[in-house]
């Protein structure tokens, strides 16, 4: 039994060439994915991108049309869900309402025919781990949302699964609780070192929790990388925009030598040259660069270095920790978004609507979007 033999083991999960169609709809298109042992990887994307299908294929609820699911060195593709030695937490927790917290957590152990004494001690251990000691006799409906979430997590981990699957596990919690649980989830996952796959459509959750982020759209894996990588160095427009606000500039690309490229952007009659760093020689032609709003500085005077674009403040809102500006650029359709950190209560300069400003950013702070 996978449940009892893999004590403390962290196993690798590998998907090889998985595809799945539902009728005419391609839910997953020949996807490969490797999760290194003990890491937390999140599948991030809008609904219908294939992330849930991927999770359900790993769990064994759906069988892929092609490809293999390998856990450790075992192909589990032909095994039913109950033989795969996994743990899973659903968005609504699905705690069995007719069982106590203790019985819920013990369920997996009972199925694995673990003796009653060991069951009791392991249930107690898990409740300690999720900070709910002594909750054995309560019923799920007596718990708050956050407590139910912890119990669901304890139930999925008590069998020491090879891989833990989390399907939007924090989606049903309110904002503050969700942030708390993000840290909590990460702590528990690190403590046990369980290879974990998290499905979410919330980019912040994916960035906060994961060692690796997989961005998916329309059944395809677009980019895999560390949270920093996918946020700072998106390859595509979709990834750039899905992971947070992003300003795009389009123009003709020219190689300026030494890993630097120049993009000639035309706004009305003006042509502005924006410099961007990129390692590979991507050639020339029409291209797009992306800049995050928080990377852009505003000033009245034109700065003497970096990329500079002139504009006029069209809108300003104060969002607590930062000021958000909408900057209109003559000859450009979309406004440029700029976030500037609110540092002190009186110190920084706040720009007013109507004011002419210069936006500037370092050439290493923009990224060239290579495949679109």
């Amino acid at each position, binding site marked *: 039994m996978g449940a009892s033999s893999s004590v403390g083991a962290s196993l690798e999960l590998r998907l090889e060439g998985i595809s799945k169609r539902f009728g005419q709809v391609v839910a997953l298109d020949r996807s490969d994915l490797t999760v290194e042992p003990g890491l937390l990887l999140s599948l991030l994307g809008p609904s219908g991108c294939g992330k849930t299908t991927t999770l359900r294929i790993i769990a064994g609820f759906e069988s892929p049309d092609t490809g293999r699911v390998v856990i450790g060195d075992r192909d589990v593709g032909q095994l039913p869900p109950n033989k795969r030695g996994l743990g899973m937490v*659903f968005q609504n927790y*699905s705690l*069995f309402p007719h069982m106590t917290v203790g019985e819920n957590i013990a369920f997996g152990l009972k*199925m694995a025919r673990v003796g009653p004494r060991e069951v009791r001690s392991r249930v107690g251990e898990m409740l300690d781990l999720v900070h709910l000691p002594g909750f054995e006799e309560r019923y799920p409906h007596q718990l708050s949302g956050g407590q139910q979430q912890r119990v669901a997590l304890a139930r*999925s981990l008590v069998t020491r699964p090879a891989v833990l699957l989390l399907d939007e596990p924090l989606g049903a919690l309110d904002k503050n609780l969700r942030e708390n649980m993000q840290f909590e989830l990460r702590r528990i996952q690190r403590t046990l070192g369980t290879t974990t796959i998290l499905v979410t459509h919330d980019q912040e959750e994916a960035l906060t929790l994961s060692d690796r982020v997989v961005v998916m759209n329309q059944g395809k894996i677009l980019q895999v990388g560390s949270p920093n990588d996918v946020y700072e160095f998106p390859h595509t427009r979709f990834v750039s925009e899905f992971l947070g606000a992003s300003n795009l500039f389009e123009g003709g690309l020219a190689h300026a030598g030494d890993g630097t490229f120049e993009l000639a952007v035309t706004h009305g009659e003006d042509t502005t040259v924006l410099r961007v760093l990129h390692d590979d020689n991507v050639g020339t032609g029409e291209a797009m660069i992306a800049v995050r709003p928080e990377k852009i500085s505003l000033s009245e005077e034109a700065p003497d270095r970096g990329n500079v674009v002139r504009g006029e403040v069209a809108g300003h809102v104060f969002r607590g920790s930062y000021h958000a500006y909408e900057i209109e650029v003559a000859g450009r359709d979309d406004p440029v978004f700029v976030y500037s950190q609110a540092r002190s209560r009186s110190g920084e300069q706040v720009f007013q609507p109507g004011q002419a400003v210069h936006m500037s950013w370092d050439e290493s702070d923009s990224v060239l979007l290579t495949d679109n």
Partner: protein
Amino acid sequence: MNWLPYSVSSRLPRLSLVAYMVAFFVFLLGPIFIVVAISFTTTEFVAFPPKGFTWRWYERFFDYEPFVNSFIVSVELAVATALLGGFIGIPAALAVVRGRVPFADSIMTFLLSPLSMPLIVIGFSLLFFLSALGLGVSFLSLLIAHTVISVPYIVRTVAGVYRSISPDYEETAAVLGANRIQIFFYITLPMIKPGIFAGMLFAMLISIDNLPISFFFGSYETNTLPVVMLSYLEHQFDPSVAAASSIQLVVAVIGLFIVERIYGLDAMAPAT
């Protein structure tokens, strides 16, 4: 509504609700109240308002052998119908709701179709059919006939409850290592119990109450209480029939009371 003064038209929805409630009490509960009242009359014939008070017609009910025998047949039949109906209806409901069954919707419609057939037609045709099978007029025939008309009620309540339960529970249990049989007994069955209970109770009430079908399968051993009451009424008109009705009523009320205490009557709302 311009021709009505504002003070009246603004209260029209409320007034019509009150009118509906009054009509409901007069036409639905009124006759029941009258039957119960009549069963205590001291007159030799059905009279309302009743004269005096007596338990005599209840004694008559328990003294008159056909009443007692048919009452026992009715109760036995109701229990057997609920059990057999549950045995057939529960798996059918589960399969239709969540099994990967082709034409699930059509099958559901088919399972519910006895509801839309005239009972007389079902009874008549079943009599011929079961006789041709050699079962004839027997308790078994009666049981089969009652089960046919009870299954829709069980299927409908069980399917309704099962449909309202997220498949996540069963999938969670599967990931935790439970096989299909374990999932059914540890997870599904406890969760659909209110639907099973309500459906089977519904089946019992339908069976106890049924006349048109039982009528076709009547014999000395297989007459149900409604059949005996009807034939009694053809010859005599004494208040013992009112007493018999009241006894049936008490049985039904006790049943509903049990459901209400255990699960709440909401569970019986025929979910579709």
